């Protein structure tokens, strides 16, 4: 987690300005995933585990080619295999590389109460800083893509870093480097979006996919991982990709406004009590004790 080479523009649970915000000009990065040319080879899964030095773990056989049911704290990149029957009765695999979407408006970061446990760099990468993580797992509930995963022995949450350590040194993420078909690409957000739009147009006009489109959901401000899908109207088919990902209002309006206002209103009870004492005085047991008078005999 190279905070030295990447500037932080947004920090979770942080009061005041973010030290790195706006000090450097940096391009927003983006991972491009064309699911139509993915062959499901899982080279990206292996590259992810290798580069991040994660311990290997048992796979789960579930009558599919999928390595395991969902990503894990030590398995950040998973190809979701979905068998799909087209309208004409023919069969197709829908394979989608599932990992953190690096939202422009990250629900995990919004939900996190710990200062600096989740940060967003100027280049758009959302990264967890485990040394600041308190293990509350609010991020799990704040993420619309079910990405952050809790490790119950370290009591920390982990997820894809978009290889922020590699990107900080000018390299592409490990998954991109390993992809043999070129369905994964890495570059600036603008370039990747333009490429994705062009590819979707090609699919619509020349390949018989009239509904092809780019998945870059505006409900989370766009993402720094974008998909080209055969059918943009049904993203759920691709292993439950939400068509309209939402951050719970709990971590947006409630956390930002209702919580501080509610606390201030509640703490208002203290000055009310104080001024009640000043204005009305105490309720003495009756009749009150006689006040000590002057001594009857001068000393």
């Amino acid at each position, binding site marked *: 987690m190279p905070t030295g080479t990447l500037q932080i523009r947004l920090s979770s*649970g*942080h*009061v005041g300005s973010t030290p790195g915000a706006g000090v450097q000009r940096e391009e927003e990065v983006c991972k491009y995933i064309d699911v139509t040319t993915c062959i499901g080879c899982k080279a990206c899964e292996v590259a992810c585990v290798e580069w991040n030095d994660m311990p290997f773990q048992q796979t789960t056989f579930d009558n599919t080619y999928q390595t395991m049911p969902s990503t894990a704290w030590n398995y950040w990149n998973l190809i979701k295999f979905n068998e799909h029957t087209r309208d004409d009765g023919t069969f197709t695999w829908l394979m989608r590389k599932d990992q953190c979407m690096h939202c422009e408006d990250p629900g995990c970061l919004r939900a996190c*109460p*710990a*200062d600096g*446990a989740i940060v967003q760099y100027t280049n758009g990468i959302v990264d967890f800083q485990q040394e*600041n*993580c*308190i*293990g*509350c*797992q*609010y991020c*799990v*509930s*704040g*993420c619309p893509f*079910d990405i952050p995963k*809790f490790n119950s022995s370290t*009591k920390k949450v982990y997820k894809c870093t978009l290889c922020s350590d590699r990107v900080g040194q000018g390299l592409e993420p490990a998954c991109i480097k390993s992809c043999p078909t070129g369905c994964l690409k890495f570059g600036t957000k603008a370039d990747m979006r333009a490429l994705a739009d062009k590819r979707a147009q090609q699919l619509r006009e020349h390949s018989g996919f009239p509904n092809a489109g780019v998945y870059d959901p505006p409900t989370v401000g766009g993402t720094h991982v974008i998909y080209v899908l055969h059918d943009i109207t049904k993203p759920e088919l691709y292993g439950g990709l939400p068509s309209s990902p939402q951050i*719970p209002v*709990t*971590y947006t309006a*409630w956390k930002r406004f*209702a*919580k*501080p206002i*509610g*606390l201030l*209103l*509640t*703490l208002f*009870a*203290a000055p009310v*009590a104080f001024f*009640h*004492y000043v204005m*009305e*005085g*105490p*309720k*003495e*047991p*009756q*009749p009150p*004790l*006689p006040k000590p008078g002057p001594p009857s005999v001068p000393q």
Partner: protein
Amino acid sequence: MTPQAARIDRAARRTVTAHGQTIVHENELLRHPVYTRVVHWSYAIFFVLALLSGFAIYSPWLFHGLTPLFGGGPMTRLLHPWFSLGFVVAFALQILNWLAPMTWTSDDRRWLKGLKTYVTNAEPLEPEYVGFFNAGQKVYFWAIVVSAALFLITGIPMWFPATFGRLIVAISYVLHDVAALLMLAGFIIHIYEGTAQQPGTFQAMTRGTVEKRWAWTHHPAWYRAVTGRDPRGDYERALQRGNNRAP
């Protein structure tokens, strides 16, 4: 109260009472026996710990101020549910202990109608019908019961989010906050009423006794019940003699 709950209440009371005593001086009445005091301060301590550790995580504005009290953020997160569980267990004993005197009656509705008189200290004595607890104390007690239940129901999914899922945790988060604010407001008023606002009240929960003057002033029906005397009459006699001695 179910027979089982009554058994727990009896057993806890017997255990604590065997190791404590209350000294009642002349002109004093026994207000809270040893058991009530021990239980009260047990959950009071857990309450304050849960309050501080909870508000540490409540807002970024409080995070850096309060988490060091518990050894940092992760430790605060780890301890908070256990403090809260301690509170719930100790407070459950108090619910059993106080179920009878905290029962809502028609007199309590009357008392609430005259709340303005109470708040403005307009009358020196409480109305004749006010028993062991007034309606304000009962409202606070039942508000704590409700918010403690809300805390527990919403706290468990927040403790084990993987078991309950994203949506339930997100809803629990809001309700947990509402319960916290409800309790905090009540707690501030409770401390004020129990100390500065009503001289002589704090010792009821520490030494366990109150002055007779205090009893006929704040809880006349209770005074009548325990002494068999007329609270108003005793007050007027004390007033005439110009001192605080009970007859």
